[in-house]
């Protein structure tokens, strides 16, 4: 049994919760997010030689970084940064959250998801900006919680990053 703690970070209403709702194993209700500030789900990713259980800590998304509970990130081996492709400001929030985590616990592997890729007409992040980020070697996925596009790929990628 190989497990890894993964934190999902992102601003308010970027769709983190809906992203995991359909694609992961969950036993806790979403009320946990508002009460405890975290909800825990599991995503099993199977590789030919092993299975990695990603224990996903879905942290309550808020734009007020001050209320972000950094302590929940302790012991995490990877991050899932989620931004809303229709609201460019959420990228800054996600990146600031990552900055905070790394300041506290050091650098760790992450993937960056631009969610809501199905809303093409309202898409607001220019392709160039995404390319620029990819240039830095970042793993970036345009995902849709609605269609499930790239969600599995993204988790598989992260699993392979943290399992080695």
């Amino acid at each position: 049994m190989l497990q890894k703690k993964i934190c999902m970070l992102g601003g308010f209403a970027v769709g983190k919760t809906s992203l995991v709702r359909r694609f992961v194993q969950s036993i806790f209700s979403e009320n946990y997010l508002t009460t405890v500030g975290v909800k825990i789900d599991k995503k099993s990713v199977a590789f030919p030689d092993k299975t990695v259980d990603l224990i996903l800590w879905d942290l309550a998304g808020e734009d007020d970084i001050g209320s972000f509970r950094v302590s929940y990130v302790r012991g995490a081996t990877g991050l899932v940064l989620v931004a809303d492709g229709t609201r460019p400001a959420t990228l800054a929030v996600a990146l600031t959250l990552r900055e905070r985590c790394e300041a506290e616990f050091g650098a760790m592997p992450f993937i960056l998801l631009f969610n809501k890729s199905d809303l093409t007409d309202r898409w607001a992040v220019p392709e160039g900006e995404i390319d620029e980020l990819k240039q830095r070697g970042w793993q970036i996925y345009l995902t849709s919680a609605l269609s499930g596009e790239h969600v599995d790929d993204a988790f598989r990628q992260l699993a392979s990053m943290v399992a080695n």
Partner: protein
Amino acid sequence: MTSSVEPISLSQRQASNDTGIDREALARLLVEIARNVDPDNRALYEGVPAADHRLERLRQLLVGGEISELSRVTHLLDEPEQLAAAVGNVLPEATARASHAQLGEALAPAVERAAQRSIQKNPNTLTDILYPVFLPAIRKSIGEKIDQTFQSLNESLRHIFTWHGLKWRFEAWRTGTSFSAVVLKHSLIYRVEHVFLISRASGLLIAHVTSQDATSEDPQLISSMLSAIQDFVKDSFKEKENSGLDTIRFGELRLWSEVGQFATLVAVIRGNPPEELHEVIRDVLLRIHQESSRALERFDGDSSQLPGVETQLQTCVELQHIDTKEGFPWLVVTAVLLALIVGGGWFFLSWQSAHRWQTYLSRLAAQPGIVVSDQKIRGGEFYVAGLRDPLAADPQSLLPGTEVDPARVHSNWHFYQSIEPEFVLKRLSASLAPPDSVRLSVVDDRIVAEGEATTTWIDRARAAAQQLSAGGPVFDISGVSDVSAEERWQAYVSQLETQPGIIVADHNVRDGQFYITGLRDPLAADPRSLLAGTQVDPARVHASWQFYQSLEPQFVLKRLTASLAPPDSVRLSVVNDRIVAAGVATTAWINRARAAAQQLSAGGPVFDISGVRDVSPEERWQAYVSRLEAQPGIIVAQQNVRDGQFYIAGLRDPLAVDPQSLLSGTQVDPARVHASWQFYQSLEPQFVLKRLTASLYPMDKVRLSIVKGRIVAEGEAPDTWIDRARAAARQLSEGGPEFDISKVRDVSPDARAAEHWQYYVSRLEAEPGIIVAQQSARGGDFYISGLRDPLAVDPKALLSGTQVDPARVHSQWQFYQSLDPKFVVKRLTASLSPPKSVRLSIVQGRIVVVGEAPAGWIGRARAAADQLSADGVVLDVSQLSELNLAELNQLREAIQTTDIFFSSGRVVPGPEQTPVLDRLADQLKEFAENAHKAGVTARFMLTGHSDITGRETANASISAARAETVRALLNKRGVAPELLQVRGAGTFEPAVPENENSRTGNSTNRRVSVTVNLE
């Protein structure tokens, strides 16, 4: 080509910085090179020059720099001080880069020795360092102990009066364990259903073990959520890092967690586990840590790294205590039913025969002339005893019809004479044999005789009637007329006529009635009393007597005796019809007697008082003195009479009769008595007894008496009394009566122990917060039970100084919470932790809180007052006022005007802010400390700000991140993290207003400000 080159000489002299260069080889090499450059040279330099200074020059040119560098390094290595400085410069860096495993092993012995040395030198240093680590562990351990105690107390109290409680008390007595232990054993039924071992760092599940048939959701998710909740609680309530969430309780389920260094063990328990289970769980966790410490520390989610842990956890899951439920006890029930049937049948039969027996008995009781005095049933046989009149029915004849088996009846009858009228009548008829003229009958329970009879028969009947009058029915014989009444009347009249002082004037008989008239002296015999014995019916006698004074000498004598009341020394008598007085009397009496004699002289008998001699005052005095001399405890030493005055001197015991009181009645004039008494202690036994009684205060159990002139004490007394008695006996031995105390038993050791015990009990009773319910002393041991407040004095501690042997004291105390104000104050002091500026005191049973306190504290005090009022305890908080923190204000001002500035887009302050941060940290610590002294808690809000360049959300994030960074930096400088709060204000609270179009942003607004709040 000619050359003036001097041949190279191979110098053997070594340069100062030369360490043996092979000069010859070098020379050969140079010649070789020269030959290769120009073949002509081959001829020119055949040999190798032995010495050449140019060679040296060449060497200098080629390696001169290295040589000087080398000499510098050599110098550095040779000089210890310089070497130490050089190594010191690189040591931190070198340590950081060294392999951790090797470095750790290399340093371990040195560090151990250093620690040892430090402890030897001054243990306090290490204690101070370890204090923050130990303290929470110790606190937790103590907390659990207290929980354990309360748990056992609660369970004991809950079961104290139930049926189970009684059973368990018996079990405790039988097994010799404490009652509370037995209660816990039975009432704590639990089962450990799951055990999770969770990595502390990541919250990942290391291992999970579950008991049979227990189910749960995905353990991986549960363990992560559990650690998230731990974090949540820790963050929300600013708890210290190293304590964990101990217990979560949900209905029947409890989650107990034990926090270890690298892993947390969570046990899910169903039921009511004993507190000791904490220790079991902790042991398992400790063992796991000991065995796999390294693997735990490095745990990265791969549970295959930790084999064998599950086996350890399995021991936890096997823990359970289930109350054994035995099958329904059919055998017992059957046996009991059988016993009930047999018992019921026997009971019915015996009830039936007893009922029949009772019927017979009531028949007997209804029979006249039969009295049942005793009856019983034993072993199916009937026993009856009582009285029966020979004339009554035979008891045996009453048996038929009652279904009582006559063979089983054992009777014991005594004959007696029944006084029921019909039996008496029968007996009277038989014994009196009344003549035909008399008829006997029973009228209203009275036996009435009517008719005529002779006096002799009437006499016999009367005798019978008299006999009967003692409890029997009335035998009325008044209806029987005496045929010889007149004869008896004549006899009566002649008897009267012979009586002195009675003169019969006339008498006759008319119609069966008797009439008589005459005179009688009041002192003469009563004619009526003479009637008795004459058999004359007084009801038929009609007498008419006139009183007169008889002058017959004996009547006069009587009257004189009554009126003169002669003293004992005077004797009156009738001699030849004269009344003669003889003896000794006082003048006054003689005068009165003389007057009486004169009165009598007119017709009465002569009253001769010439035989009475007058008593002189001297004689009376002598009589008095001889009376005194007869008094015990009075010794007359001297007495005389001079000039009509009486003088007396002597000794008297204070306990003897007062000589003065003896004077009355002696007719000695007290005014003429001059007495001089010396007090002394009489040694007559009765006086000694009195004195001993007064001085020894004999206890209730000692009785003093005089036996043959000796004073004997008997009974029981403590040794202190015996000692005093012995001392008294010694004193008496010189001339006094013997005082024998050998019959007094010494009861002191027991009595003293009991006294000490009573003293201890009274001390306990006087102690507030202790209620003595019961106490007794049995067989030399003392038993006490009651209630005590945990804050009250330990009853054991009170034992010291009472001389009661603690080993003989068996106490049983139940804890309770005293509502005595003193204890309430103690509890309040512990729970509210009032600031120093507040004083709690008790005024007339009310608890009054006076002083200054922060508003938050006042609120808590009010809440406590509300709670207490329900218990009837008054907590007066009206005299509390809000704290004035003037002194802190200056420091607060200084803190609040401090800002930490940032470069554009940065969340970490530049190095130029370091001194500001240092100063701020010092100020915060000082403020927090002062506030704590004043009893308030200071909290500092770090507010991050940004300039207005950039997006609003990014600004919000960056401002919060700045505040977080400052918190971390202050934390590093020793400011307690729980005092620091952070928030991001974004651009909303600028220090200076900014132009919307500004491109660079205002550096003054990129800052973190501090505000101080007091709680």
